[in-house]
């Protein structure tokens, strides 16, 4: 059975080969071939993952580890690279390769006619390989290899149309902010080695369990891993790069900046659950970072006008929800939300992609509207996704979000860190999510048509290669929810499935069933309020109310993304550039000239010595005589003779 599972180990290799083939010979291939190669390599990876998934489900062992080759070795510190395929990593692999495959197919249509066609698919394949490496790694080091690998691929793909300075800057910003998170990851690894003596995740998890509850060193390790996670999952304070990352092609935003890469932070914390379970402080920090990010991101999403920027802030907000889930100790809930979010967010992005594709690159929602009539499939699938993300009951979003809310309310791990306040925040954010998603759907698909008339007749639905993935994703985003029904009343498959991988001593308050239903009711009310408000503002009053609010301070604050960009530029970027040029001039002027000045006394000494060579013979004779004299004195006085 294990060899069936270990087949999945070839998935990253396949993706890598696909990337190499496209990279080296890409330009030689005609248009769709690179796309086909890339999609195939990811597709086969998907099949392998499914086989492994069912083999693992059937088999009795929960974890298969495959060692590759020894990597680092110094004294007692041994580290060899290897994969650890357990239920959590296989689930993630399914998401990555599954959603990845759909997006690859979609991209064949979307990138049609682009002159960097093969380069695009090389980047996408490389990304899938790196992401698989990240989730399959058995040690923090190999995870870090995948961690930076995805950072690089996102840099390559965000800056795909590198000729515009805007895209290149966005790519650079994403890379540098990710790099800050990676530095945090490095420090966390160092502390892990000094504390546990090894980087093997399973060993660390077991050892962490043995440590005293809430010990400070664990707290620091947790915080460092949190810093790494915020870098990659665009949470406060490192969330500024994701909105700009929309400069990349839309399928890239769908795959990387919605479904897979940004969830790496959540996966990391879930993977190191036993460690976080031991430090309520660090977990509370995770939860609060998630909560605040969710709230702020939702607020910013209100006023955004770019179709993809709204979805980007919505992603940041949903990631905030996942962080709260893993923060409060409900690790399977976090992964469950990752699972469902991957589907409907990818669908939303691909829908936006097909809208942009149809409107020949138009991304501003103010010049869209009423497209539902013209693009049937995109319209309906986007509607399903919007309802799902808004948390409308019986759709996947509702189940995962409700689970998060329920577990936040009943969490004991961070009970004394204000989990109820957090619950309230999340509830409000859920409502806000419903509102801005309704706004998004309405501005694009409903209401009067604001796009130029001449586009009207050429408007057509995207080709089937793009709409088919939309339909598949829509089906998934409806059904996915039923894998994780509320435990107290219904069979919950995903909790049971992830249990062995993330089992921790974390417990939750046991509520009476009536209270559970009350919680579910509350989340339904939140969704209803959000949607209703949206309907009242945009449908009934045709957005007149919004026009009046346009100039208010809140609206400006929201549009500017809470001023984080300006703040970071003023606090970090300018001073950094200032110190850089300052240090550079210090280096050339002070250190350089200083040392040269230090050498000047030697010059003085030389000139003084030259005086002795006056050229007068008699001076030389005198010098000789003095020499004789001194010698004679020494001999006579030192009593050598006697």
């Amino acid at each position, binding site marked *: 059975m294990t060899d069936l599972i270990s087949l999945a180990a070839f998935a990253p290799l396949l993706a890598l080969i696909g990337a190499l083939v496209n990279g080296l010979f890409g330009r030689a291939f005609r248009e769709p071939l690179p796309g086909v190669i890339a999609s195939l390599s990811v597709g086969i990876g998907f099949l392998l993952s499914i086989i492994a998934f069912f083999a693992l489900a059937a088999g009795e062992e929960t974890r298969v580890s495959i060692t590759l080759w020894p990597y*680092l070795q110094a*004294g007692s510190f041994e580290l060899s690279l290897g994969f650890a395929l357990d239920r959590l990593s296989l689930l993630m692999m399914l998401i990555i390769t599954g959603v990845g495959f759909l997006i690859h197919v979609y991209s064949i249509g979307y990138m049609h006619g682009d002159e960097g066609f093969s380069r695009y698919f090389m980047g996408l394949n490389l990304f899938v390989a790196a992401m698989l490496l990240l989730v399959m790694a058995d040690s923090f080091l190999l995870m870090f290899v995948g961690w930076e690998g995805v950072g690089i691929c996102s840099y390559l793909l965000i800056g795909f149309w590198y000729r515009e300075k805007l895209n290149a800057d966005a790519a650079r910003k994403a890379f540098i902010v990710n790099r800050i998170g990676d530095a945090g990851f490095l420090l966390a690894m160092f502390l892990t080695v*000094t504390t546990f003596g090894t980087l093997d995740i399973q060993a660390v998890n077991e050892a962490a369990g*043995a440590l005293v509850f809430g010990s400070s060193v664990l707290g620091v390790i947790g915080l460092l891993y949190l810093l790494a996670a915020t870098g990659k999952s665009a949470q406060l304070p490192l969330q500024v790069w994701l909105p700009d990352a929309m400069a990349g092609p839309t399928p890239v935003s769908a795959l990387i900046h919605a479904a897979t890469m940004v969830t790496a932070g959540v996966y990391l914390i879930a993977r190191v659950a036993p460690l976080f379970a031991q430090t309520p402080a660090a977990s509370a920090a995770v939860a609060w970072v998630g909560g605040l990010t969710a709230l702020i991101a939702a607020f910013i999403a209100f006023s955004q006008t770019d179709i993809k920027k709204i979805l980007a802030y919505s992603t940041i907000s949903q990631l905030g929800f996942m962080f709260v889930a893993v923060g409060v100790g409900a690790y399977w809930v976090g992964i469950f939300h990752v699972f469902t979010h991957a589907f409907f967010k990818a669908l939303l992005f691909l829908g936006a992609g097909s809208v942009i594709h149809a409107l020949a690159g138009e991304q501003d929602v103010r010049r869209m509207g009423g497209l539902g009539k013209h693009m049937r499939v995109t319209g309906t699938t986007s509607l399903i996704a919007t309802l799902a993300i808004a948390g409308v009951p019986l759709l996947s979003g509702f189940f995962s979000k409700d689970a998060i809310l329920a577990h936040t309310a009943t969490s004991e791990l961070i009970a004394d860190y204000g989990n109820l306040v957090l619950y309230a925040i999340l509830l409000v954010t859920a409502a806000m999510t419903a509102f801005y998603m309704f706004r998004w759907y309405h501005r694009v698909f409903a209401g009067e048509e604001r796009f130029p008339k001449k586009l009207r007749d050429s408007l057509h639905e995207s080709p089937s290669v793009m709409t088919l993935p939309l339909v598949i994703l829509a089906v998934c985003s409806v059904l996915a929810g039923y894998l994780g029904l509320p435990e107290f009343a219904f069979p919950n498959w995903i909790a049971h499935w992830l249990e062995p991988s993330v089992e921790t001593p974390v417990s939750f308050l046991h509520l009476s069933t009536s209270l559970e239903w009350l919680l579910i009711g509350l989340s339904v009310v939140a969704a209803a309020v959000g949607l209703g408000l949206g309907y009242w503002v945009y449908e009934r009053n045709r957005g007149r109310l919004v026009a009046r609010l346009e100039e208010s301070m809140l609206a400006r604050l929201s549009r500017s993304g809470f001023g984080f960009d300006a703040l970071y530029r003023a606090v970090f970027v300018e001073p950094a550039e200032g110190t850089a040029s300052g240090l550079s001039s210090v280096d050339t002027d002070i250190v350089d000239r200083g040392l040269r000045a230090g050498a000047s006394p030697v010059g003085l000494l030389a000139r003084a010595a030259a005086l002795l060579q006056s050229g007068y013979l008699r001076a030389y004779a005198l010098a000789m005589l003095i020499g004789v004299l001194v010698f004679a004195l020494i001999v006579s006085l030192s009593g050598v003779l006697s």
Partner: protein
Amino acid sequence: MTLTVILIPLITALFLFFSEAADPLVRRFLGLLGTVSTFLVALYLPGTPGMSSLWLPGVNVYFALSPDGASAVLVLVASLVMIPTALYASGRVERRTGSFLALLLIMQAGLNGIFLAKDLILFYLFWELTLIPSLMMLGIWGGTKRRQAVQKYLIYAVTGSFLMLVGMLALRPLSGAASYRLEDLLAVTPALPAGTQLWIFLLFTLAFAVKLPLWPLHSWLPDFHEQNHPSGVADVAGTLYKVGGWGFFAWALPLLPGAAAVVAPVLLVLAAFTAVYAAVIATSQTNLKRLLAYASLSHMGLVGVGLFGLHLTGLSGAIYLLAAQMVSTGGLFLLSGMLYERRKTFELSEYGGLSRSAPALAAVTLFVLFTSIGVPGLANFPGEFMSLLGAFHASPWLAALATLSVIAAGVYGVNLYQRLYQDRETQPVADLRELELAVLVPILAGILWLGLAPGPQLERIEVQTRIIAQTVQPGEEIPMVTLGGRP
């Protein structure tokens, strides 16, 4: 066998000196012959026995060479990098190519000597021998302000090494060792009184800090690289010649452990500061060569951080990083040579959008840039990781400071790529030609080999690190051998 690694380059250099009138292809063939055969010999070096014959009887100086442990690794990597360098030099240096190549090979012989020498005075001999060709390459083939650069480089290098010579010569009489060979000295010098150990170690530090280079003694580096021959070949040789780290690793730390324990924390501060300082400055540079100079200075800061952590992982990591940065920084300098050949300038402001007309060049540059900023899975990462880890054991805060250089490295790496290859297109350039491809293939192979399979090399390095870790017996607070095995 070990002697042949030094003799082959010397002999080929001799032929090359007289090949001035010969046809360029003959020169290229000779250059390749020399470097490739040296590389092949270097491949079989680790197994072979060393040699040790009495050289200066009066003073008991032996001509002792032995390819144990880290020296074989460094010789192997240095000779690997030398192949593309010689090939590119034969293609790109116009004036007196024969003697340029000869100097390059003499430098390679000197470098192999430095790494293999197991006798202190022989080490010093090769240490100075390698300086001469480096100076001549800068002085004869350098840029407009080469004279000041040579003067500064000479003053720094020579003052440091002469003082070191004083320390070296004093070592044997003071300690009463049988000879200047490493094993004889190792038996006796650790027992020297703390005072003598300290001043001798400081003399050693002065010379090695110039070559490491560490913060206050580094200002020769930017000028050295800026004024060198635009093909970047002399810079690669210069990068190989940054052997201060090896000096500390093979000689200063093991011979004078008492002083090392006292001085190392101070040097650790300096090294960490150099790493961050240089990386931050690199972000603001507008001249390509100066930017690469500061980047390599930042790497050497990390090597220093690894060394002065006085920890087994750090020491092995520092030497591995030393080897890896030869390949990556060497590759970057060769690429800068290729860029200069296309646009005849190093000013970054005149570059832009080259990726459209030279995609292969852009891809390779990006790959080598990512290696240089320490992306895991590529050459620099294992060394950097272990160095920082070693330093983390010594002092977490300094290691944290040094890790900031990783971020600054990311900034200058990506900035450089954007200014060269992205944004609007300035002037289309030719893509990689076959000579350049042939030059870059060994570099890329080296990067992948060092990045993906550090295991065997680390094992060899560790043989020598173990000796140092044994002799360096700092106080309890710096765990000497065990890797933080605390439960």
